[in-house]
């Protein structure tokens, strides 16, 4: 595939991610922060997000598995996850976290479990999408082109 086509694909894909709500404006902000002095910023942040999130999800699973759930701890974790996802612009994950937190306040473990599932689902979805996106970007760069950030918005 030649560079132009790859770039167009990238743009379309990115746009679709926004349209479908996987990503929001914050992700664009991250992309804006990427420049010559910081060429891998997005990749770095995204990787960190993956690491953090996986750790947090594991912690959450473990915490909710307990007999007596420590809702404070759960809440703290969810809060962290919410923070990370909102920092990166993973909109759906963030929204799921917000819902999760409200159930934590209610101390409803059933609902919390359900929310956890939801969050996980959303997380894996977005992880998939982001990985695809990054791969696309790497292909473009390998082919000698540049990622057309300016075609995006917000």
């Amino acid at each position: 595939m030649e560079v132009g086509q790859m770039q167009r694909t990238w743009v379309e894909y990115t746009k679709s991610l926004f349209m479908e709500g996987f990503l929001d404006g914050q992700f664009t902000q991250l992309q804006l922060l990427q420049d010559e002095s910081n060429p891998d910023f997005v990749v770095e942040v995204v990787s960190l997000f993956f690491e953090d999130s996986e750790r947090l999800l594991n912690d959450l699973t473990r915490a909710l598995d307990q007999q007596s759930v420590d809702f404070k701890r759960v809440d703290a974790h969810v809060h962290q996850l919410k923070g990370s996802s909102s920092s990166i612009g993973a909109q759906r994950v963030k929204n799921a976290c917000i819902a999760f937190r409200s159930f934590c306040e209610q101390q409803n473990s059933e609902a919390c479990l359900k929310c956890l599932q939801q969050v996980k689902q959303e997380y894996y979805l977005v992880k998939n999408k982001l990985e695809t996106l990054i791969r696309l970007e790497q292909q473009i760069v390998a082919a000698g082109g540049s990622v057309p950030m300016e075609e995006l918005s917000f």
Partner: protein
Amino acid sequence: MESCNCIEPQWPAEELLMKYQYISDFFIALAYFSIPLELIYFVKKSAVFPYRWVLVQFGAFIVLCGATHLINLWTFTMHSRTVAIVMTIAKVLTAVVSCATALMLVHIIPDLLSVKTRELILKNKAAELDREMGLIRTQEETGRHVRMLTHEIRSTLDRHTILKTTLVELGRTLALEECALWMPTRSGLELQLSYTLRQQNPVGYTVPIQLPVINKVFSCNRAVKISPNCPVARIRPFAGKYMPGEVVAVRVPLLHLSNFQINDWPELSTKRYALMVLMLPSDSARQWHAYELELVEVVADQVAVALSHAAILEESMRARDLLMEQNVALDLARREAETAIRARNDFLAVMNHEMRTPMHAIIALSSLLQETELTPEQRLMVETILKSSNLLATLINDVLDLSRLEDGSLQLDLGTFNLHAVFWEVLNLIKPIASVKKLPVTLSLAPDLPEYAIGDQKRLMQTILNVVGNAVKFSKEGNISITAFVAKPESLRDPRFPDFFPVPSDSHFYLCVKVKDEGLGINPQDISKLFTKFAQSQSSATGNSSGSGLGLAICKRFVNLMEGHIWIESEGLGKGCTAIFVVKLGILERSNESKHPFMPKVPAIHGQTAFSGLKVLVMDDNGVSRMVTKGLLVHLGCDVTTVSSSDECLRVVSQDHKVVFMDVCIPDGFEVAVRIHEKFTKRHERPLIVALTENTSKVTKENCMRVGMDGVILKPVSVDEMRGVLSYLLEHRVLFEAM
């Protein structure tokens, strides 16, 4: 007897003849002696006599002749030889002198004769000079008369007076019997008797204009003698016994203003003449002299000029009266218009007040609602309500502004402001609406765009917001891009607007803003109507034609006030459109730092690296958040240190850090702020403390304020927001409006 040497006369002395001869000789001698005496006497009397020598000679001749005759007396009787000898000597002498005299007279007599001729010539010359002198004197008199007449004629500008005076003066100067003026009627076919000298009210005699005598007079520019019997001269009943006086007629050109518009004197192409008829007294046997005719001609010319002056004056008086009337009418209209404007302004003011009160309620309550706990959807709704009501409030202001703009009573509020911040704010305001419609909005500011500018910030923002708002309003899909850059003079010279001459100088620059959308577009024919008040494009595709149609009209006026220009380009319906405007803004002088106490302490502000080297500290326990915030600040050029706990923060924080960003959700977050205050007692040493939080409740804000934080920022924060916040913060050292 024989020794008597006497000479015997030939004839006896007693003879009668001898006696007569004796007497004659005696008288001759007497006469001859008396002549020189007379001559001497009269010559002595006269002063000039050029020929003295001749006189002497002649005297001698005469005396000798007399002597001869005298001596001859003795010869009638017996006389001695001595007498004879004396006689002979006398005669000889006489003969000599007389011959000499005769010879000289040959020379002298022609001379004497020529003197006489010369005298005659001189006399003739003197007579001639006398004659000429008389002529000159007469001419000079004529000239004096003409001048006096002219003076009389030109001393008034009233047409009737002019004509009357002319006739009167002419009559006086030339001792005329009658003087009359015939004017052409309106139709131009007849001459009507208009003025006469002697008759008080001339009856309306008319003569047809085509009479041969009249033609003769009109075709010649001199005074013409005419017959006393022709119709124009038969004005009054003939009263004299003998001959009526000679009559002269002259044409008086009636000049019009149009005749004076050519540079050289007009050739009297006007063809409208009046006829002046002058009659010498009858029975006077006077004749028209050449100088009198000349006088008449000159007067006729003067009258023509005076009449045209009078006509011009009448014209200008009429025009002046008309103007005065118009002035009065205009004044009245102006007063009425002013009253109307005042009435409208009053109405608008009242209406605005009535409209603003509920608006304030909506805005206030929405703000309050925003402070409470809301779900994200609810928050979005409330924000939209707030933004919309703000826009509506702005619209109400617009209406008032527009009416003030039209009066010309609006003036720009010039001030120094952050130009970049204006654009970010517009972006923030338009984001919610655009996101609802799912329209991506990009903003790109040129690197050479000054950070600060001098101008009317509020109205500039209003303009940008309006233009961008329109782009959003009239787009159903597609990108909206806002670009701002410093306009170069060449690119600004739009041939469509030849009046717009932007001249950048050292103190001003031209900001050019382009807003491009891919929305509904505009029919090129409608573009000109866009900027007119209340005109809306009636295309049904627009659907909800919200807005009063005032926006662009107001923008145009603001732009004009800022000495700029605004225009819209569109390829057609469905092809989107681009709105471009250029405004003049003042450049902030770097050297005048003392005049602007709000200048941030960071020197050399250029474009994006506004905060190069600004040392900041970021405290956040969430790794991703921390990384993102750091990346953001690094992108802005700051020198960022990150810490993940409050202890670490307190350890690391120093005087060099200008700002500390802390996530207040971590435990002890507020504590840190208090500690920092304790650590740095002096205000200028202490770094500014800004809280980062996802929670925008009033409680959080109050808590932040209580512990002495300088500001609160809502996470997640965008690059633009961070930039704006940082600059505002550094400028004002407090940030509590940034939520």
